[in-house]
């Protein structure tokens, strides 16, 4: 299976002998070790550090279908270099747009997305409830919101439900992460106000980029979304899909990292008005997140083991079938 590359160190990536050459820079800016990376085995690049590259490299990456995702110093997703679309499908494009423009059809998809997200985050809460955490009240509250979903008649209303569900869910975070030194009052972004928020921001962004990478390998158009408003200059379909996978990929990664003390308060830096993950912490996070994406589960319908990463792609296929009126979309619901 092709692998994602994560680049933290400043360095120069270039094309040489039809493959990738990476030269790291040390603190003084002097060239360090060079490393050749097999292009045939690279799925995509995630760039966190400062990377030097020229257009020859991007042409080469484009030809090989490798996309590059960029993140700024504050760990926000800033954008992607996407290779030219290689799977074009006019019919699907028309169907996707049709499902967006008709409010009735759009509501169906959007509602399923919220439903899937709510189901998966409830799964997380129930798991911890089984381990003696007091979250019954929040579970009941979220279930109440979910029961209201079928009656929502506008997208804004659905977004409202989604917001409420998440807010209630985040209220439990402090309980779920039973480690001193981590408090969580409410979700804050740009910049995140405390450690848990910093982890959530970082993780959500990785999840967002992972979804985008998978969408690229299907015929769906990443700019036309259903739950989120398709804005310009962003791939909002990835935001839609990420909703479903965030509880599984991001939140569970965070619980593991903190409960096993793999990330500790000293992995953060407080500066200006926010809280950020230090580089060592980021690397740990990425390593565990990557493990999670590669982790496999036994798929019930396909009757074979499937990685989390592949589950995202399967989700795209299901969406495609729905858009082409072949089979109704059922959001992915964790069954274990």
């Amino acid at each position, binding site marked *: 299976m092709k692998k*994602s590359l*994560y680049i*933290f160190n400043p*360095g120069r990536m270039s094309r040489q*002998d039809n493959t990738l050459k990476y030269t790291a820079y040390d603190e003084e800016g002097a060239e360090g070790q060079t490393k050749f990376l*097999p292009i*045939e*085995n690279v799925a995509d690049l995630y760039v966190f550090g400062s990377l030097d590259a020229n257009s020859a490299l991007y042409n080469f990456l484009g030809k090989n279908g490798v996309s590059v995702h960029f993140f700024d110093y504050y760990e926000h997703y800033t954008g992607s270099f996407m290779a030219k679309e290689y799977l074009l499908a006019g019919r699907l494009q028309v169907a996707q747009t049709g499902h967006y423009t008709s409010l009735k059809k759009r509501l169906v998809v959007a509602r399923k997305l919220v439903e899937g997200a709510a189901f998966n985050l409830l799964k997380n809460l129930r798991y911890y409830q089984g381990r003696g955490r007091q979250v019954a009240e929040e579970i009941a509250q979220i279930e109440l919101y979910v029961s209201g979903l079928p009656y929502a008649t506008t997208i804004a209303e659905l977004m409202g439900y989604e917001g409420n569900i998440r807010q209630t869910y985040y209220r439990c975070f402090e309980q779920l992460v039973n480690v001193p030194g981590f408090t969580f009052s409410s979700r804050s972004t740009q910049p995140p106000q405390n450690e848990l928020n910093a982890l959530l921001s970082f993780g959500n962004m990785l999840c967002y980029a992972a979804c985008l990478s998978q969408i690229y390998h299907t015929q769906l158009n990443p700019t036309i979304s259903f739950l989120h408003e398709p804005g310009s200059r962003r791939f909002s379909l990835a935001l839609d899909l990420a909703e479903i996978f965030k509880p599984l990929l991001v939140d569970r990664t965070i619980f593991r990292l903190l409960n096993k003390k793999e990330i500790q308060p000293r992995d953060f830096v407080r500066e200006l008005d926010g809280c950020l993950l230090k580089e060592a912490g980021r*690397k740990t996070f990425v390593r565990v997140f990557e493990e999670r994406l590669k982790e496999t589960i036994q798929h019930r319908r396909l009757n074979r083991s499937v990685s989390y990463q592949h589950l995202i792609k399967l989700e795209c296929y299901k969406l495609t079938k729905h858009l082409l009126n072949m089979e109704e979309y059922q959001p992915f619901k964790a069954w274990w």
Partner: protein
Amino acid sequence: MYVILVYDIKQQRVSRMLKLCRRYLHWIQNSVFEGEISEVKLNELLSKARAILDEDEDSVILFKSRTQQWLEKQVVGRERSSLDTIL
């Protein structure tokens, strides 16, 4: 599939072989490569390798293993290149 590829090739052809292998596998030591590769990609690599090597003089040896877990790797001395994907 996880493979270890080693080659012994006459000097005038060795750099072409090196460049070819770099595209598919991770270089770990002089004339030794390692990495995850699919059946199809491996066939592609081997057919390109055949075009480079002279079958009377040179050889490429492959060690295949189903997954990386089935392989225990031990490095004595300096590790010249790690296989890490987090740079």
